[in-house]
């Protein structure tokens, strides 16, 4: 028997970093599978490429930094980054987009800062932003759903050509996301009343039967996964609720002012990667504030930036930019937003006991 002295506590909640990562991966699995079914074999290829790239980069960096490779590689964080990155890419993106993205996410986004827990920016979102800025053509190639095994879906061999060599006939497959479509059409001075019919239906949008990034379209599945994480207490409601509520309030307000110019809250909620971002991206513990109030501010900031970028910015979608910008603000939020310490005022002085303490608590002294 070992009586080696160690400090209390000698009990621990059945939680660990690999377990948390595993639960998040489980929660995002339905949306991932849906994306693969929706966009066929090339989507699966892309997912495998990003995961492999992330794991490989992680292993090399850990080795170079002289850390133990196995425990960190198996903690699930690099795997999760790979999955989230793939989910935010165009589903038929070529292999090198996935590989460069994986390199960016893990090496530039995470390991240069010192590895897990040290990074300032969400690795997957940093990679997506870098790719979008560097390769705008490949990163905005959207396609209509072509489910696995359907008549116009590519076969497995054909998918390898798409992944390795690129899409041969771009015009034949490409479409536009609803947010992209709205932006283009609004740019041509048309009104939403003319733009949306035929392109947007709340039902199909919620079910995800629409063009977009690999894993962002299935809003209902993403929502269910997120709610499951809340129920399992892997994360708290503060970031997602603040983020979604801010977008809804802003969208509702502007839509109320001018419904022909500003899309309705429902369109905002069910398009792009808002749901994915609210539950799986912005909630990244490393890059979001640690206090509840800080998380509310962070979520609201993300929501406001998403709405601003979508409505007035240069890109139709702004989740990645919004999250990365708010990531940069996280140290500031954590610096100023701290809980009040028990027995102290907000300023840290000893908190005097109010006068009522001089009297016995209400109701005492009487039998029940």
């Amino acid at each position, binding site marked *: 028997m070992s009586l080696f002295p160690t400090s209390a*506590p000698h*009990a621990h*909640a059945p939680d660990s*970093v690999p377990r948390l990562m595993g639960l998040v991966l489980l929660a995002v699995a339905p949306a991932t599978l849906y994306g693969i079914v929706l966009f066929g074999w090339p989507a699966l290829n892309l997912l495998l490429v990003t995961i492999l790239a992330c794991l490989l980069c992680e292993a090399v960096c850990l080795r170079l930094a002289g850390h133990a490779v196995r425990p960190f590689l198996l903690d699930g964080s690099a795997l999760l980054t790979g999955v989230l990155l793939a989910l935010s890419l165009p589903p038929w993106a070529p292999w090198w987009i996935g590989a460069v993205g994986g390199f960016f996410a893990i090496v530039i986004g995470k390991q240069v800062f010192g590895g897990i827990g040290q990074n300032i920016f969400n690795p997957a979102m940093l990679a997506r932003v870098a790719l979008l800025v560097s390769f705008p053509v490949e990163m905005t190639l959207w396609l209509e759903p072509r489910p696995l095994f359907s008549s116009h879906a590519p076969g497995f061999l054909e998918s390898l050509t798409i992944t390795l060599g690129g899409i041969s006939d771009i015009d034949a497959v490409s479409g536009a996301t609803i947010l992209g479509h709205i932006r283009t059409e609004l740019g041509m001075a048309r009104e939403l009343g003319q733009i949306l019919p035929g392109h947007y239906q709340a039902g199909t949008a919620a079910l995800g039967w629409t063009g977009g990034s690999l894993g962002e379209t299935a809003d209902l599945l993403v929502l269910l996964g997120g709610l499951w994480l809340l129920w399992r207490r892997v994360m708290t409601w503060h970031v997602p609720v603040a983020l979604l509520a801010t977008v809804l309030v802003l969208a509702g307000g502007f839509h109320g002012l001018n419904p022909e110019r500003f899309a309705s809250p429902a369109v905002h909620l069910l398009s792009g990667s808002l749901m994915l971002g609210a539950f799986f991206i912005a909630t990244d*513990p490393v890059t979001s504030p*640690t206090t509840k109030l800080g998380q509310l501010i962070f979520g609201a900031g993300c929501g406001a930036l998403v709405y601003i970028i979508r409505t007035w910015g240069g890109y139709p979608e702004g989740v990645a930019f919004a999250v990365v910008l708010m990531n940069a603000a996280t140290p500031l939020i954590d610096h100023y937003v701290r809980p009040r*310490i028990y027995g102290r005022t907000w300023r840290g*002085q000893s*908190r005097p006991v109010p006068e009522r303490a001089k009297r016995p*608590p209400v109701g005492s002294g009487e039998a029940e």
Partner: protein
Amino acid sequence: MKLFDFWGGVHPAGQKHLSAEQAIQVLPMPSRLHVPLQQHTGRPAVPAVKVGQTVRKGQLLGREQGGVSASVHAPTSGVIVAIGDFTAPHVSGLPLPTITLESDGEDRWLEREPPPDPFALEPEEVAARIGEAGIVGMGGANFPAAVKLSKARQAKVHTLAVNGAECEPYMTCDDRLMRERAEHIVDGIRLMLHALQASNAVIAIEDNKPEAVASMKAACQPERQIRVVVVPSRYPAGSAKQLIQILTGLETPAGGRGTDTGVLVHNVGTAYAVHRALRQAHPLISRIITVTGGAVARPQNLEAPIGALVEDLLAFCGGAMEATSRLLMGGPMMGQPLPGTRVPIVKGTNGILALTAAEARLEATPSPCIRCGRCVEACPMGLMPLEMSKRARHDDLDGAEAFGLIDCISCGSCAYVCPSHIPLVQYFEYARGALEARQRAEQKVKETRRLLEQHQARLARAEQAKAEAAARRQAEKRQAKAKVGAAA
């Protein structure tokens, strides 16, 4: 009665079922007892006996030194065989001055008459008798009870909060005491109210102890000024600061005392000891201890004499030491690891816990912080443990202090929930120790500088005096010369 909420907290697995249904058993008197002279906060007791002396049960062994101190008494009759160092029940395994008593097997009491009506005594006299009985806070604080009562009376405390929350997992000693000896506890509470000159008492019990609640409610029935309140089971509801918050919604001011809120917190075990001291004239020489954990064959609640060895208690419970990977005094959240089984139990020992490797989760190794904020959420004091530990790790003591290091109550809630298994409490204990050492060193430097300055001032004065004397002599000489000159 309206209850309030405290911040944070965790829900560790209770594990109280292991011993909760075991009625209190009296531990057979061990042949030798090792009674440490310091079992309390403050100054150690001074030996009042000599080696070879025969003592009766309840006789004074060590006399309190005055101020914050507490006496110790003979847990049985027998002969003093040694007064010297013995391993203390502390992680360090360092020895403490201890009186070793060999039992004569007769367990004969020193005859003493209890006062006929303790309520006829002056409050100060009641407190004095509590002090004479060597009673300290039995919840683990170990602060001399009489000192606490007298100070609280001076502070005009209106409510006595009797702590029966027992929020530590595994521990059931207070639960059993409340179930089996409720009348005695209530009598002790009435006596403490008299000593305090306070009007109300509230007995707080967590809702996971319905039998104890029922038993205490029944015992309180005739008492209008004593009531039982059921508080939600959430660790650390039984911490004094959090209990005050639950009962009053008030916070103990930083750097202040709990009594600033008008409430004095005492453990149910202390109330029981007070009853024994004033009704039977029995000093505090035994207590209820839960011996439990997955590595104990037959977990039980024992009434054990102070000074019995941990191995005596474990042996009575069937032992099973092979599976023990961690041996603790106290519960798993705040208990102290023991340096071995040959250490005595003391007045503040509420449990002996032998955990298996699976229970203690020894396989977990710390990994980097992922800033999930669970520790912030769990902290009942409103601290940011992740920020404090980050600074403590890099010896940034000022930084850790600025984040509230001195407000930490070491409850361990943060480390309990940390998914990275970072030993946060250990960092805080280290930083606090380093901070104290630094403050001592600074004090020493300041004191040295003061002495040096005094020394230099003294030298300068001496120098000046010498110079003045020389000048005077010179002047006298000149004067003398002038006189001589004038005379000539």
